[in-house]
């Protein structure tokens, strides 16, 4: 200050503020606009006059939300920032004074009272600004919010349902779908999931949730669906209609490893693909492989449902074969990332070793003499398929006696004697619906599940979209099972995810493939 004075040439005396006596209580204080000490000023003027000091708020004990009238429910934790903002918003007249600070005062959680200490600032008398803090008490009243009360009244209340069906005799597709849904969290908004005879029912609270679920399904499996609605209630005065929506979703019945005899139209449409084809992969389109020419074709959902052919033989009818001799491959091809080699093999059925067959197979790259393989026994099977019959009659050489589908690892599995796997998978929370007289055979289901797990082990591409978790109960077997040549296929450990455990001593190593 003094340097400035010297520069400007002015002589400014330093002004010290004196002290006067407060006109009310006589305590010495620096002079202010009102010439009263703060306490006297506070006793004179109450700036919190006219402000709300107690107010009622509504709380839903089911979902923990607070009501902001007229209709919004805001989710907030006890003594959280959101709750503080909400409480302040509920106060009227707070715009007349300036809000400086607000904080919670501790109250018993079950006292149903929330206390907030608010500090406000306002101008009083002749320009003096006064700050005052006062408590506001909120009485919390319990009131179920609309959605909770609707849920309480009828817990099975759903607005939209998706009925997923596949008319085949096994549940493999559903096991796989279950894993996919878990991985992508597609059914997180489902109220209920029920397992029925040939499918699964999903119930949603919202039509848009069901819609998004159906869209998800469309991306992963070839489906055909239709949507229907049923009128539940009707408000005449406001013309509001309440419906229940149902999506009937049909998954295409052709599965992996099925043998299909294509109708002539479809075969010619696909470029004269040999009518006998093997389905190798089903995602949002179906991959069909002709085992004789090693040619592949893709059919998407629309194309499939136009013709709607069914499989001639399914994986139920797979028969075990012994492979005696494998000749050198005559042709090789890589289709869709998979290598195939065409070669002639000598095989015989396990049940009838005497009868040998000399057939062509596309598995020349993995079969060796002495192996076991699974395939369809067309020679001995009684196939109930029109197309197959037509083809049998039309072709002069006759149908191939057998078509091998995959290599069989049963022997190696027996040798290992390993009861537990080093990985495990989760499952959806499904209810069993026996009300419709379903013939659910638990033994059959278990066997199918075991086969599904084996399938996962054998096929890395199947594991692509699935989350596998490390099994903590697994112990490596002491016997070096790797020494006896080729072991049964296992899931490499790099592909396993550690199951998320929120206890403090577990490290979270998330090793994704």
């Amino acid at each position: 200050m003094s340097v400035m004075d010297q520069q400007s040439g002015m002589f400014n005396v330093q002004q010290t503020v004196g002290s006067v006596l407060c006109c009310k209580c006589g305590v010495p204080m620096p002079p202010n606009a009102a010439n009263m000490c703060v306490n006297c000023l506070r006793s004179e003027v109450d700036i919190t006059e006219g402000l709300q000091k107690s107010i009622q708020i509504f709380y839903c004990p089911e979902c923990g939300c607070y009501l902001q009238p007229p209709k919004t429910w805001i989710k907030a934790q006890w003594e959280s920032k959101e709750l503080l903002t909400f409480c302040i918003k509920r106060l009227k007249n707070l715009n007349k004074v300036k809000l400086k600070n607000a904080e919670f005062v501790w109250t018993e959680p079950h006292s149903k009272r929330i206390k907030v200490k608010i500090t406000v600032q306002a101008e009083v008398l002749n320009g003096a600004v006064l700050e005052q803090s006062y408590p506001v008490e909120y009485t919390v009243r319990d009131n179920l919010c609309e959605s909770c009360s609707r849920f309480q009244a009828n817990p099975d209340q759903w607005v939209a349902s998706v009925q997923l069906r596949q008319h085949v005799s096994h549940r493999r597709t559903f096991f796989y779908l279950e894993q996919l849904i878990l991985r992508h969290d597609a059914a997180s908004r489902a109220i209920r999931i029920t397992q029925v005879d040939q499918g699964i029912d999903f119930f949603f609270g919202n039509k848009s949730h069901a819609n998004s679920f159906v869209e998800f399904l469309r991306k992963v499996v070839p489906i055909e669906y239709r949507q229907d609605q049923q009128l539940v209630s009707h408000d005449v005065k406001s013309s509001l209609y309440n419906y229940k929506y149902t999506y009937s979703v049909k998954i295409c019945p052709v599965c992996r490893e099925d043998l299909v005899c294509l109708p002539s139209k479809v075969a010619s449409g696909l470029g004269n693909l040999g009518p006998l084809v093997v389905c190798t992969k089903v995602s949002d389109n179906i991959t069909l492989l002709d085992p004789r020419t090693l040619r592949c074709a893709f059919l998407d959902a629309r194309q499939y449902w136009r013709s709607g052919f069914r499989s001639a033989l399914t994986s139920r009818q797979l028969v075990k074969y012994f492979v005696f001799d494998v000749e050198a491959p005559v042709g090789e091809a890589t289709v869709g990332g998979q290598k195939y080699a065409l070669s002639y093999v000598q095989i015989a059925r396990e049940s009838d070793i005497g009868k040998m067959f000399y057939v062509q197979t596309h598995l020349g790259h993995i079969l060796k003499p002495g192996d076991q393989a699974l395939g369809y026994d067309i020679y001995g099977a009684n196939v109930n398929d029109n197309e197959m019959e037509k083809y049998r009659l039309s072709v002069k050489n006759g149908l191939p006696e057998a078509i091998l589908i995959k290599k069989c690892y049963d022997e190696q599995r027996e040798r290992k004697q390993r009861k537990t796997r080093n990985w495990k998978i989760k499952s959806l929370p499904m209810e069993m619906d026996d009300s419709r007289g379903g013939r659910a055979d638990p033994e059959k289901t278990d066997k199918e599940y075991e086969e599904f797990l084996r399938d996962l082990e054998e096929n890395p591409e199947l594991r692509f979209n699935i989350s596998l978790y490390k099994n903590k109960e697994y112990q490596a077997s002491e016997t070096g099972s790797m020494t006896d040549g080729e072991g049964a296929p296992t899931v490499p450990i790099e592909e396993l995810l550690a199951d998320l455990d929120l206890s403090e001593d577990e490290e979270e190593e998330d090793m994704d493939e």
Partner: protein
Amino acid sequence: MATRLQFENNCDIGVFSKLTNAYCLVAIGGSENFYSAFETELADAIPIVKTSIDGTRIIGRLCAGNKNGLLVPHTTNDQELQHLRNSLPDSVVVQRIEERLSALGNCIACNDHVALAHTDLDKETEEIIADVLGVEVFRQTIAGNILVGSYCALSNHGGIVHPHTSVEDLDELSTLLQVPLVAGTVNRGCEVIGAGMTVNDWTAFCGTDTTATELSVMDSIFKLREARPTSIVEEMRKSLIDTYA
């Protein structure tokens, strides 16, 4: 002891009255209570004159005076001037001055020995003040305000100034005026002291809003507890001075 009273429900006593050691002027038109309050206090010591200046009642702010004289603005009527000359004792010189700033009570704060004047007062007026009132005139401001008459109340024993006066200013004024000064308020925190109260050497009058604290401050600075008529005090002072001389 200071007295609390009101003029027509208004606490600004210094506006409607002017009190000096030799006389007291009060405004007309108020209730007789106002008048009688002065009478009770001042009894037969000094004359109490009811007057108006330029037909208005705000006489306290329009005129300035002490025991030696009274200065009235140029707006005063001849009748009022004559009335004043007749009613006041002969020792008091009543002078009408031609001054642009006609609210002399706001511009001049004086006691019997020294006066503070508005900084923009004419040179002539300053000389007249020195002459008529027999005082030494200092042009000053109080807490940055040029209306010195409004923001301080002065007597021969002490004075109260605007509460926002800094310590340095207070010291300076005190040295000039040769009396102890204190920064204070009157009428419940009102800063316009000169308009809120009127004082002479042995008594003071202020509005009813004045708090006990303010009263005690007044009593202590103007030394009103030992209230006695002027003559006795003067005698005491003369004897004291003789001793020191």
